[in-house]
């Protein structure tokens, strides 16, 4: 029943869509029925060339995200545990967080070229911010009682970092990852829509250019399914690693 409840909501949304599509109020070219979208989705899933486009987007998104995951945790931990580093970097991150990095994409194209590198670089930059900021706050706000206790027991700085700070920060790190991962998917699709000869974003534009809304929506569904799968994988990993603070124990 617990698993069925969210499905019920999705089923209601799909039923509302189908009713609207069949109502005749909107042109089917603009508002295609679920049957047509499902047909295009089926075609997508059996065509190796289309699946390859999904793979291209996925490796770009995961490439940029992985780089940001490493660099972001490193920077966030340094900022959280060193006042000097925080003084140096906090204004930079806080001051430029709101900048739409996508506006920098033309510059990235000129620096890194039109291929994957410019897209991976932009994904890295977009993902870096949430990971750094959330990790920074997690590392900074470690319970002092834990730190004092470790110090009283004679733990070295390295031991405190490894045995106290890092475990206390890991839930924050994963929170940052969960914010950054969908950002990676969004940015990869947008950059491919702007300038690419492959990937899911390219397929969106390709379908839209010939007014194939049903095909475009099928690609959108693939993007959302990929995003969902990545998030579930991340939650699974988190629950395995952070076993003392599982996400499914929040609601008691």
């Amino acid at each position, binding site marked *: 029943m617990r698993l069925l409840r969210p499905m019920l909501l999705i089923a209601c949304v799909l039923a509302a869509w189908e009713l609207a599509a069949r109502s005749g109020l909107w042109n089917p070219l*603009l508002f295609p029925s679920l049957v047509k979208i499902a047909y295009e989705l089926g075609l997508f899933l059996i065509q190796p060339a289309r699946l390859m486009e999904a793979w291209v987007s996925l490796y770009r998104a995961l490439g940029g995200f992985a780089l940001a995951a490493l660099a972001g945790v490193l920077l966030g931990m340094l900022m959280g545990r060193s006042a000097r580093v925080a003084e140096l970097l906090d204004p930079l991150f806080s001051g430029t967080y709101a900048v739409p990095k996508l506006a920098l994409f*033309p510059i990235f*194209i000129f620096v890194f070229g*039109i291929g994957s590198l410019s897209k991976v670089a932009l994904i890295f930059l977009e993902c870096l911010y949430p990971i750094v900021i959330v990790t920074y706050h997690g590392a900074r706000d470690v319970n002092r009682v834990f730190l004092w206790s470790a110090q009283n027991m004679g733990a070295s700085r390295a031991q405190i970092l490894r045995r106290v700070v890092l475990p206390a920060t890991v839930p924050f790190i994963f929170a940052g990852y969960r914010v950054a991962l969908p950002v990676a998917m969004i940015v990869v699709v947008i950059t491919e829509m702007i*300038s690419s*000869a492959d990937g899911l974003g390219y397929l969106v*534009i*390709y379908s839209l*250019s010939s007014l*194939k809304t049903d095909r475009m929506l099928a690609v959108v569904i693939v993007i959302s399914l990929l995003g969902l799968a990545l998030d579930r994988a991340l939650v699974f990993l988190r629950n395995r690693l952070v076993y003392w603070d599982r996400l499914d124990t929040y609601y008691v």
Partner: protein
Amino acid sequence: MKRSACLLLACISIALQISAHAAEPPLIRLGRGFAAEEQVWLMSARPDLTPNQGKRYQLKQILFQANPQRFQAYLAGEIDAGTAPGLSVIFASEQGLDIKVVASVCMEAAGKEWFSTTYMTKDDGPIRSVRDLKGGTVGVVGIKTATDLWARAGLLNAGLQPDKDTKVVPLGFPAMGDAVRTGKVSAGTFVEPFYSAEAAKGGLRKLFTAVEAVGYDHELLDLWFGQKFLKANPEAVRAFLADYVAVTKYYLANTAQAKRDLHKAGFVRTPLEIYLKNADWKRDPNARVNVDSLKKLSTFMREKLQWLEKPVNVDALVDQSYLPR
């Protein structure tokens, strides 16, 4: 008695409003683009050139950045007509859109007096002919746009397979010059005013033009109307097209002045001195559509590019009966 008088006055007022509204000529909501549509824009910039406007029809022009959005707006009932490249209209027709091409706006045509979209490469680079683009990248302004079609046609002519031998990537017109010069793309697409500006900077060399790529003069932009609007308001469309043809003739005879007027009205943001010098696309003074060229484009899109899943009946798509005789 007082209440009856008030009721009578209200009825008279409503009746007057309805009759005033009924007397208003039909409003044409026209989706326009941002390049090569000078005579269309001039109808709004210089309404004094359009004697029927305001009397037999009203005109409201709405700017769109891309072609698919224009057709989506039409499907949503937000516009009645629009401008669009020939190939976009063919795409729309394939998808079953109930529209008709009623007039030509401009053409890609051979001849020194006309501009044709040009593909250029680095002057001192290794690419001496289109065949040398093997393993390289061509910048076009958008996927499945006319610039994409010409690039692919040029590559096919040279025996190259687009996407396999040479990548075709979208890139904005303003970035094209630097992208070619810095080697980010092997060749790029240049239209006015970027063509003149980049040619003046030097360092670029022509590879081929749109006309050379497909091998014949062809429709670049056309005017289309929704069929429902055509059936409901044939006289308004005839009056609109009579004005449109008159404005086209005025534009061709007084190009410099027309360009000044368009610049002043804010339709063009290019510096005036550059805009005045730009070469222009060919425009038929009578706005007649080159139907054969649309047929050839449609066949090329279906047979060579596999862009169309089913054939398009171009004869049924074009209806020039609304143009002045």
